[in-house]
C-alpha cells in the first residue's frame, strides 16, 4: 500500500497538525519509547563502545560487500537454502509470485518486512489474485485499515485503540465499542492462528544474514515469523543486500543494540536463527538490490546502508513525532527514510531532506552511528544542484548571497530596509507570512548593533 498522494511533507504535516490533541498524543507516545530506549542504554556502561563496534563492523561489511554476499550465498546453498537475486522491486515480486505459482499456492502469510513494503509486494500479489495476510499485529491492523505502516517498528503507532476496535469489529467480529488492547490482541490471536495453520507459504523479512555460516536471523516479539515459517511448506525470506554481517559472533553486538534502541527491551522475545530447512520444507531467500548498490556508490550517503531498522531515529525526531509517519509518503519514514528515499527517486522525495531542523538527535541515538543529520544537509545540496528546488527559492537565495557578500548592500536602507527585514522569513508582519500564523515577529530596535557600535566611544574596528 503506497500513500497515494501528490502532497509533500509540509502539506501532509500541516494536515496531521489540524488535530492538535492527536499530535500531542502521538508525540508523547513516541517520546515514551525514546525514554525507554534511554533507560535501556544507560544500563550498559559499554553502550557507546557497542555503538562504535557495530558501526565499524558495518563499515567493514560495506567495504567488502561483494565478497561477503558470495560467501553468504555459498554457505546458504550448502545449508540447503535456495538463494535468488533480484535487481529491483519488480524482479523481487516476480520471484515471490513464481514460487507460489509453481506450487499452486494462492494464499500466503507474511511477517514484518519493510523491504516488501518498499517493493509494494502486497499490492502486486493482490493484482495476481494472491491473498496475503500480514501477521504482525500492527501490520495486520494497518492492512485491515488499508493504510501503509507509519513506523518501521510500530506500524500502527498513529492509530488509537478505539479506531482499532472499530476496524476489528468490522473485519474480525469483535464486539462493537471494544477497545481494550488485551481483548483486541486476543481477537487477532484467534484470527491469525487459523491463518498460520492453513497457509502453505510464509514470507518473512531478515534482520541479519551471516556470511560465515549462511544462516539468517529474524527478531520478533510476537513469534509470528516463527509461527508462519515453521508451519508452512515454503518459507520465503526477503533481504536487502546490506543485511549481511561477517561472522556469527557479530550477532552478539547487533542483538544487544537492536531492541534496546528500538523499544528499550534488552532483546526481542524471539531471535531465531534459520540455517537449514526443516524436513519436508523449503527455504528460499531473495537477495534484493533495488537501488542499494547505487547508494553504495554515493560516497556521502553510502553509510545509510549501515541501518539495522531499529526506528530509534524516528522516536527521537521531533519532526517525526509531530508530523506522523505518513507525512513522509515513503515506506520508511523519519530521518533514516529521508536519507534513503532520495536515492530511489530524487524528484519525488526532494522534500524529505528538508523535513528536518538538523537538530542531530537522530545521529546520537543511531546504534550504528549513521551521520543522519549530516546526510540530510548533504542531500539538500545535491537536490538543489540537480535542479529539484523551486525556482523562486533559487532566485531569493541568489539575491541573498549577493547582499551578504557586500557590506554596503547589507547596511543599505536604514531600519526598514535592513537585510533581515528583506530576507528573513519571519520579518513580514502579515497573514500571508507563515511565520506570522502562530508567532509574533521580533520587534525592530531603533538601531542595529553595528550602528550602536559606530557611535561608541573608542570603538575598535
Amino acid at each position, binding site marked *: 500500500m503506497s500513500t497515494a498522494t501528490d502532497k509533500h511533507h*509540509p502539506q501532509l504535516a500541516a494536515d496531521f*497538525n489540524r488535530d492538535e490533541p492527536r499530535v500531542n498524543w502521538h508525540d508523547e507516545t513516541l517520546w515514551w519509547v525514546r525514554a525507554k530506549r534511554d533507560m535501556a542504554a544507560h544500563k550498559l556502561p559499554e553502550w557507546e563502545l557497542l555503538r562504535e563496534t557495530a558501526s565499524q563492523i558495518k563499515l567493514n561489511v560495506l567495504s567488502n560487500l561483494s565478497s561477503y554476499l558470495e560467501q553468504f550465498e555459498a554457505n546458504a546453498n550448502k545449508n540447503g537454502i535456495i538463494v535468488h537475486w533480484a535487481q529491483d522491486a519488480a524482479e523481487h515480486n516476480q520471484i515471490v509470485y513464481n514460487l507460489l505459482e509453481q506450487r499452486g499456492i494462492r494464499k500466503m502469510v507474511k511477517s514484518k518486512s519493510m523491504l516488501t513494503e518498499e517493493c509494494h509486494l502486497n499490492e502486486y500479489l493482490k493484482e495476481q489474485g494472491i491473498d496475503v495476510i500480514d501477521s504482525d499485529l500492527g501490520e495486520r491492523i494497518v492492512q485491515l485499515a488499508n493504510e501503509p505502516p507509519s513506523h518501521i517498528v510500530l506500524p500502527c503507532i498513529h492509530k488509537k485503540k478505539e479506531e482499532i476496535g472499530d476496524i476489528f469489529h468490522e473485519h474480525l467480529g469483535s464486539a462493537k465499542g471494544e477497545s481494550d488492547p488485551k481483548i483486541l490482541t486476543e481477537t487477532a490471536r484467534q484470527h491469525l492462528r487459523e491463518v498460520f495453520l492453513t497457509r502453505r507459504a510464509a514470507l518473512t523479512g531478515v534482520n541479519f544474514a551471516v556470511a560465515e555460516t549462511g544462516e539468517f536471523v529474524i527478531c520478533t516479539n510476537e513469534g509470528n515469523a516463527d509461527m508462519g515459517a515453521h508451519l508452512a511448506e515454503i518459507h520465503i525470506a526477503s533481504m536487502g543486500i546490506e543485511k549481511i554481517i561477517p561472522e556469527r559472533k557479530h550477532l552478539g553486538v547487533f542483538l544487544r543494540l537492536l531492541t534496546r534502541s528500538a523499544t528499550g527491551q534488552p532483546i526481542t522475545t524471539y531471535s531465531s536463527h534459520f540455517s537449514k530447512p526443516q524436513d519436508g520444507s523449503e527455504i528460499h531467500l531473495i537477495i534484493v538490490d533495488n537501488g542499494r548498490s547505487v547508494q553504495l556508490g554515493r560516497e556521502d550517503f553510502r553509510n545509510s546502508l549501515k541501518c539495522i531498522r531499529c526506528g530509534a531515529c524516528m522516536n527521537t525526531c521531533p519532526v517525526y513525532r509531530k508530523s506522523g509517519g505518513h507525512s513522509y509518503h515513503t515506506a520508511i519514514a523519519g530521518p533514516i527514510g529521508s536519507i534513503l528515499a532520495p536515492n530511489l527517486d530524487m524528484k519525488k522525495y526532494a522534500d524529505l531532506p528538508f523535513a528536518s531542523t538538523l537538530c542531530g538527535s537522530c545521529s546520537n541515538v543511531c546504534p550504528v552511528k549513521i551521520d543522519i543529520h549530516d546526510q540530510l544537509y548533504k542531500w539538500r545540496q545535491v537536490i538543489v544542484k540537480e535542479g529539484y528546488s523551486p525556482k523562486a527559492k533559487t532566485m531569493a537565495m541568489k539575491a541573498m548571497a549577493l547582499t551578504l*557578500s*557586500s*557590506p554596503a548592500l547589507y547596511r543599505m536602507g536604514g531600519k526598514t530596509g535592513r537585510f533581515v527585514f528583506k530576507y528573513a522569513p519571519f520579518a513580514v508582519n502579515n497573514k500571508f507570512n507563515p511565520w506570522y500564523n*502562530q*508567532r509574533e515577529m521580533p520587534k525592530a530596535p531603533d538601531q542595529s548593533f553595528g550602528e550602536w557600535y559606530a557611535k561608541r566611544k573608542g570603538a575598535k*574596528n
Partner: protein
Amino acid sequence: MRVALFVPCYVDQFYPQAAIATLELLEKLGCEVHYPKNQTCCGQPMANSGYEHLTGGCNSLFVDNFSGFDYIVCPSGSCTLHIKEHLHADGKEMQAAEIRKKVYELTEFLVDVLRVKQLGASFPYRVGLHQSCHGLRGLRIAQMSELVADPFSKPGQLLNMVSGLELVTPGRADDCCGFGGTFCVVEEAVSAKMGKDRVADHVSHGVQYITSADLSCLMHLEGILRRQNSGVKVIHIAEILNNSL
C-alpha cells in the same frame, strides 16, 4: 588577547542588546575586543537551504573580516558551528582553516579559554535553559541526553555562578525548538508546534525567563510567547552573565 566579535546578522539587527552584553562581558573579563564592521553573515541561511555553493562571496568576506585575531567569539552556537564546519574560501584556505580553529561560541569561550570561575553577576529569577541543538550536538557545549556519558553543561556551569538565579530543568532536557532556519516557514505547522511544546514545557516548570546560547531559538520561542501574551520572557545568556557585573 585580541578577540574579534562575530555578531550574527539577525542578532545585529533584532537583538543588539545581546551583542552589547557579549562585548561588555568580554571586555570586563580582560579581552581586547574588536568588531570588524564589514561583517555580514556566516552564510548558514543559504547553506542549510541547499545553496552552499552560493556562499563563496560570503565566506570570502568572512575570512577578510576575521583573519589575524587570537580568537573569534560569537553569541550563537548555530553560526559558530556553521563557520567551524563549512568555512572555506578559494585562495584563502589557510586563513579559513585558522578561523575554523579559532572560532568559539561565547559560553565555551568563557569556560574553555578564559576559564571563568566567578562572574559577580546577579539575576534573581527562575530561569529555564534552552539547549540549542547546534550548540549542544554540534559544538558539544553540554552533554547530550542521547549519549551514555558523563553529564556537563558549559552554559549551566556559568548560570550557576549567577547569584539569585534559579536554574530550572525542563521535562525534555534538549528537544529541538523547531526554528531550523527556513524550516520555520517551509514546515510552518511542525515548526510552530515544536516551539509551542518547548514553551509549554518551560512554562509548566514555572520559569520567568527562558535563556539560551542561541538567539535564533529564543527568537522563535519569543514569537510564540508573545502571541500567547505570556509573561515569560526570553533573554540571551550573555545578558544574564553581564547583569550587574
